[in-house]
């Protein structure tokens, strides 16, 4: 068994905290956007699709920089947030969660879309004829049937969120106990003389958490499909 120093534990806890928050923040918007992209035909659909996928192809540092521009104390969103609600996102745990959420957003949207595409529109039609109005239909038929996709997306995003580096370090900086998540702590350790042991331990834990997350996502998806009678 590897024994960990309090600082190392702190990095792990912080990572779990940031990843959890990022999933909680992005889940509902992701379901909405996935539904829009799958079920609605509107002008600007392709633009929205591209925008959602941007974090996958743009360097994470650029995403972090963009967030800094938008949510910084002087930024168009950050300034009113700070002035009216006293909320500061840069250099905070919340900021790290926001950066992580943006980075993992395309992953959730993709998984939720896959889940939604598996829902037979014929079943929603059947629900319509049985008297179910749109929201009723969505909550009682569409949502349960797409839930494997939602869960898989959440778990994948959580696993990926544990390791978000570029956007977090750019937007939220590298503050131990505040924004120094696992990958940041590993990076710091590699830059510190004698930090090789810390780096190795944390890297191993990163690997284990990510692997566990993926396996869990797969297991949940299987269970849910079985539950939905898809065998």
């Amino acid at each position: 068994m590897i024994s960990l120093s309090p600082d190392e534990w702190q990095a792990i806890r912080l990572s779990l905290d940031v990843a959890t928050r990022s999933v909680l923040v992005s889940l509902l918007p992701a379901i909405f956007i996935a539904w829009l992209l799958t079920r609605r035909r509107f002008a600007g659909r392709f633009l929205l699709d591209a925008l959602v996928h941007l974090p996958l192809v743009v360097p994470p540092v650029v995403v972090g920089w963009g967030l800094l521009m938008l949510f910084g104390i002087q930024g168009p969103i950050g300034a009113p947030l700070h002035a009216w609600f006293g909320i500061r996102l840069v250099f905070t745990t919340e900021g790290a969660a926001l950066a992580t959420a943006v980075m993992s957003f395309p992953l959730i949207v993709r998984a939720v879309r896959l889940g939604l595409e598996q829902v037979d529109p014929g079943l929603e039609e059947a629900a319509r004829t049985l008297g179910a109005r749109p929201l009723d239909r969505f909550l009682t038929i569409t949502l349960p049937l797409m839930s494997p996709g939602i869960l898989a997306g959440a778990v994948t995003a959580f696993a990926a969120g544990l390791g978000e580096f570029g956007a977090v370090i750019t937007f939220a900086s590298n503050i131990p106990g505040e924004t120094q998540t696992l990958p940041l702590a590993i990076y710091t350790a590699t830059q510190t003389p004698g930090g090789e042991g810390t780096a190795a331990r944390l890297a191993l834990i990163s690997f284990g958490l990510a692997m566990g997350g993926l396996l869990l996502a797969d297991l949940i998806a299987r269970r849910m499909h079985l539950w939905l009678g898809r065998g």
Partner: protein
Amino acid sequence: MLEVSLRHRFGGFALDVEFTAPARGVTAIFGPSGCGKSTILNAVAGLLRPDSGRVALDGTALLDTAHGIALPAEQRRCGVVFQEARLFPHLNVDSNLRYGMRRAPRDADGPSFEEVVALLGIEGLLGRRPARLSGGERQRVALGRALLMRPCLLLMDEPLAALDAPRRAEILPFLARLRDAAAMPILYVTHALDEVDALADQMVLMDSGRVLASGGLEALTARTDLPLAARRDAGVLIAARITGHEASRGLTRLSFPGGALWVPLQTVPVGTALRLRLRARDVAVALTRPADVSVQNILCAVLREIAPTASPHEVFLHLAVGETVLLARVTRDAVARLGLLVGQEVWAMVKSVAFDHARLP
């Protein structure tokens, strides 16, 4: 009464139909695949918005494009039975059955949950998920779900097409019971004539987006100008009633408007109404009453019309027995040999009678 009038274009296909369906009983929409039958059903259910048209139930418009009326499907209260059942896979049979029932208006009237479950024989399935049902069981649950939503109108889109022959035979009696129990118009889309024979009272005969003919099923089967006459077992359907048994001779007497037929002894009681199919190829004619023949049923008839068949060598004879018209399929040579003329009195020999047992109550 249900009034339907629809016009819709999509791709290279044009639908232009108009028909009515009575307030009770099954109106079969019959025609080859791709003739627009399902489009009609979807438009009536509100799942498809036609270019123009009107759908009215007992005078109330569900759709009237001329007046900007188009009730959404969820407010039309049309119970729909789809070809593939479309049960909700995450709900068990009980919850599936209650889905529409919970959303029906409070004052809506209809059979109770227990009655429907008993009618369809699905008591033992209530706790199961759809994935663990057979095709026939699924379709029965789908029927129950549509009935329990307290519909004003039942729409069935080839409900038996996805099933094999034994399963179809399993469901047909349930459909017949449902038809007799349901006090609402039922539109039944199919391309299987045996289902029409077994279930329908009215028929809308379709081909490539148009209505060829519509009306009472018995009347339509007596017409030789419709594609129905081209089928191998073409012949008239007759509504008859059992009026007596003669056990000593082993015969049962069936009366129809204008005459009576003897058939081998039946076990159903006197007074039972049933539907007979007299195939045109099973009816022969003679100029004088034949003696010394084994045929049980020899009816006096008037030759009303000599109509062509798909074959150049054969014709249909329209034979009026009282007010009922029979069809006989004979060769042109026979017509010439006997010197048959319209208006002439002839003897019709009926060699066999096919029963439609699904008609039995």
